């Protein structure tokens, strides 16, 4: 009897599950096919495409049965993926069929943030946006319109709208993520197209990089492979990440990473452990760097970093002994401090001191088709993609709000494609250097992704027009005037992506199933139709995505049909290569695009832009007693601001907690699981405490992407801590959103 009651509890307690069928505690017989049996026996198919549960575009194999996506796997023919896909990639169908997706275009009817919208036709939405944008342009100029998106293949279409209106203010999300790394690569090598060859490395040092929670399937697999082959992993991080759990954890004092890196250089010079031939042959400015690190002794670094000098010396010796098959990692989300770009430059320089460029287990230049052209015996392997021609865009009348491109200022080295996206908020609120009045947002959620969330909301409220295109009613969408419902990646074609690594590689994204919600659209169609409505149709010179892809593939030996069939293409039989693998003096002229054609340890550009031609050390404040450094990080089952509401991922992790060391908990009389209030200045966030030995006593940590305020994200709404609610909108030297210089107080709620 007891069991029967228990049974009833389980089954009736789950009203949310629409698919609740059969059973109900009767002793009846059941179909062996279970839920699958409700569908007719029918066709099964595999569609090769690319994932978009994060922005890495991993090649996938989508299993379709009876017209529905039933499962997603990694593409079996791509050796870097080996049929593997992460939890988020596996969860794709859960997003596709989520009834909480936005299904119709909407226009705001209530106050901003009140959540009152009316469903409208696409036509009405386009007309509304067109009228508003032209009003802003007529009154304030095209530059008063800002566009921001998570970087991706949608940019070509999305950005065309802004550029055609004469706006210079188009932004990617990169300033909140890897932009300082991009700047460092650009200024040191003259190219951002440098990757790490993790799979073959023998010694790997992470400075906060977390391959086992911030998962990039190919890179995570490569690091795993290296560890299996006996590579050593060292992880500098104020908190004990899963990556730290797989290596030697050095809980470094926050924001002092550059001291560690400079001490490595100091030791390598002092003990003559560096590759002098490489430095002489390929680089310039080394003597200025040597001068800069002369007093950056291990003793000094111990005081700065909290890591003992013996450890710093030992790690440096081990790293140098593994040369050139060692990697001091250049990071992923790289915006810890205002001068983070100099940490990234210093990391690259220390790598060059072991001569690990273009060798296995070091760093290499990506090798797309246009790169192979420089190598006669390889050039025949691949042809570069073509593109759809566009008329010239009007030259913007004013410069960008972030000063990008201005000589003699840091803007000189900020990549114009990315820009300092946090400046949009400042420009709206302070009207400096001039006001932004309209903002188009595509697959980006500034409320969660930018720092200083309350200020972001304030900025939203001041806009004449805020448009969001996304798959969910994100927090930003909730505050928008117009919401455009995009279909998911499983329902659309997209341009061919060039994903070249050690060899050229092309990947297609194609629909696995027809639109689940018929009034959603792919982004390329949305912006083409909007552009046509605005009289900007000339910038969208293609019929449909098939036509676009055919134009891309025209110069290659590939066809649209072939790409649909194979999903991912690499030149058959071509092996990845490293230019210096067999000749340590081989020319790197095709790799380096700096003005000097050398690796610029000292960079004239950086000197001009920031007066720091080689990296200088700045000591950042450390938390005083009673305050804690606030750090954030990624988790394997979620993607930043993107997946908190995806059913299965939300089920696996619906919320976050604040990590605190037991020593600190005792001082504050806090216990594991306590309800707490975290405060920074005037800002407060509620949350739950997790007491753990896996964090420095002077720091606290939470996973990023929670604390959502859009009630339409019904699963994620109101759960957890939004770390960016506590961090002020400090913009670093090269435009990066500074993430790790905030101190907080914690008290019992």
């Amino acid at each position, binding site marked *: 009897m007891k069991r029967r009651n228990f049974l009833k509890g389980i089954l009736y307690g789950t009203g949310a599950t629409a698919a609740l069928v059969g059973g109900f505690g009767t002793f009846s017989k*059941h179909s062996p096919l279970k839920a699958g049996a409700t569908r007719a026996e029918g066709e099964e198919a595999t569609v090769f495409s690319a994932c978009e549960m994060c922005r890495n575009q991993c090649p996938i194999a989508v299993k379709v049965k009876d017209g529905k996506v039933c499962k997603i796997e990694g593409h079996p023919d791509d050796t870097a993926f080996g049929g593997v896909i992460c939890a988020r990639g596996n969860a794709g169908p859960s997003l596709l069929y989520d009834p909480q997706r936005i299904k119709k275009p909407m226009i705001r009817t209530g106050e901003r943030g009140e959540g009152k919208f009316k469903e409208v036709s696409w036509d009405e939405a386009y007309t509304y946006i067109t009228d508003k944008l032209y009003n802003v342009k007529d009154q304030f100029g095209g530059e008063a319109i800002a566009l921001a998106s998570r970087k991706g293949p949608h940019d070509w279409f999305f950005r065309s709208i802004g550029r055609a209106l004469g706006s210079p203010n188009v932004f990617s999300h990169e300033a909140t993520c890897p932009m300082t790394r991009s700047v460092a690569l650009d200024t040191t090598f003259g190219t951002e197209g440098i990757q790490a060859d993790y799979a073959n490395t023998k010694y790997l040092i992470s400075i906060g990089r977390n391959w086992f929670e911030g998962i990039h399937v190919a890179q995570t697999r490569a690091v795993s492979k290296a560890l299996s082959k006996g590579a050593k992993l060292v992880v500098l991080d104020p908190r*004990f990440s*899963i990556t730290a759990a797989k290596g030697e954890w050095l809980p470094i004092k926050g924001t002092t990473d550059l001291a560690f890196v400079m001490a490595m250089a100091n030791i390598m010079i002092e003990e003559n452990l560096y590759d002098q031939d490489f430095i002489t042959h390929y680089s310039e400015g080394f003597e200025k760097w040597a001068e800069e690190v002369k007093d950056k002794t291990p003793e000094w670094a111990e005081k700065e970093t909290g890591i003992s000098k013996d450890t710093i010396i030992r790690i440096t010796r081990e790293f140098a002994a593994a040369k050139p098959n060692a990697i001091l990692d250049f990071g992923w989300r790289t915006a810890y401090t205002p001068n983070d770009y100099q940490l990234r430059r210093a990391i690259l320089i220390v790598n060059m001191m072991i001569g690990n460029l273009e060798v296995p287990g070091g760093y290499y230049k990506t090798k797309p088709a246009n790169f192979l052209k420089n190598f006669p015996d390889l050039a025949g392997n691949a042809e570069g993609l073509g593109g759809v021609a566009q008329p010239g865009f009007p030259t913007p009348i004013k410069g960008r709000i972030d000063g990008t491109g201005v000589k003699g200022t840091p803007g000189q080295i900020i990549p114009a494609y990315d820009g300092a996206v946090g400046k949009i908020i400042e420009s709206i609120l302070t009207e400096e250097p001039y006001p932004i009045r309209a903002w188009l947002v595509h697959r980006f959620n500034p409320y969660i992704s930018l720092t200083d969330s309350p200020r972001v909301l304030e900025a939203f409220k001041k806009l004449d027009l805020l448009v969001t295109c996304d798959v969910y009613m994100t927090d930003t969408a909730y505050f928008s005037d117009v919401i455009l419902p995009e279909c998911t990646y499983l329902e659309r074609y997209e341009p061919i992506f060039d994903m070249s690594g050690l060899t050229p590689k092309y990947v297609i994204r194609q629909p696995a199933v027809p639109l689940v919600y018929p009034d959603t659209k792919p982004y390329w169609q949305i912006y083409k139709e909007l552009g046509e409505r605005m009289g900007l149709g000339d910038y969208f010179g293609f019929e449909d995505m098939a036509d676009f892809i055919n134009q891309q593939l025209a110069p290659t030996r590939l066809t649209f049909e072939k790409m649909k069939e194979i999903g991912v293409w690499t030149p058959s039989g071509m092996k990845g290569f490293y230019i210096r693998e067999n000749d340590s003096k081989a020319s790197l002229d095709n790799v380096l695009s700096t003005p000097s054609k050398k690796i610029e340890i000292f960079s004239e550009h950086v000197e001009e832009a920031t007066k720091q031609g080689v990296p200088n050390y700045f000591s950042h404040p450390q938390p005083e007693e009673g305050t804690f450094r606030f750090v954030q990080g990624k988790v394997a089952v979620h993607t930043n601001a993107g997946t908190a509401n995806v059913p299965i991922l939300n089920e696996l992790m619906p919320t976050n907690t604040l990590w605190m060391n037991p020593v600190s908990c005792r001082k504050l009389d806090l216990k594991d699981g306590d309800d707490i209030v975290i405060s920074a200045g005037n800002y407060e966030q509620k949350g739950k405490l997790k007491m753990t030995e*896996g964090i420095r006593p002077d720091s606290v940590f939470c996973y990023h992407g929670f604390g959502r305020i859009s009630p339409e994200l019904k699963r994620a709404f109101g759960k957890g801590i939004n770390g960016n609610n506590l961090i002020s909108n400090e913009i670093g030297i090269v435009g990066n959103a500074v993430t790790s210089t905030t101190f907080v107080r914690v008290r019992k709620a």
Partner: protein
Amino acid sequence: MAKKYTMIINLAKCIGCQACTVACKFENNVPEGQYRTKTPATELKGTYPNVSLFFIKEACQMCQKAPCVSVCPTKASYYNEDGVVLVDVDKCVGCMYCMAACPYNARFLNKETGVVDKCTFCYESKVSKGEKPACVSTCVGSALMFGDLNDPLSEASQFLTKHKGEVRKPELGTSPRVYYIYEGVVR
């Protein structure tokens, strides 16, 4: 020849990413809130800064002396010809005796079908067709291995000759076919 299927879980390589957890849900249509497999973290051991942690995949241990099989009143739980413990959904009456008997807490009453559910090694959909279970083929850390111990040349057999595979709760004498490799983790 009958197979002797085994799953080997190399704990040092598992990163707890839950790709297996999600792959299993879609492969086997597991209802919301229920799981055939999950990979929770062990409790953090040690004191700052000398700490350690690992993940341990949980699922049916495919016991060869399975309490769930012997306790089942309708013979719905059974060993198939390849030593895989399965549930015949036509025979299961949902009495849940097996759930109480399982020392690994690996079984649950599927709230959609009303019968007992658990890991099957993806026998019907994958393994019988020569493929690997869904969790194994999506494992990001390459921590999972699947194979036939009756084939001395299989990767699994070869691996177990070089590494010590341990079963969970050996004192119960259930003879599981899921082996855990603890090399490189702090227990």
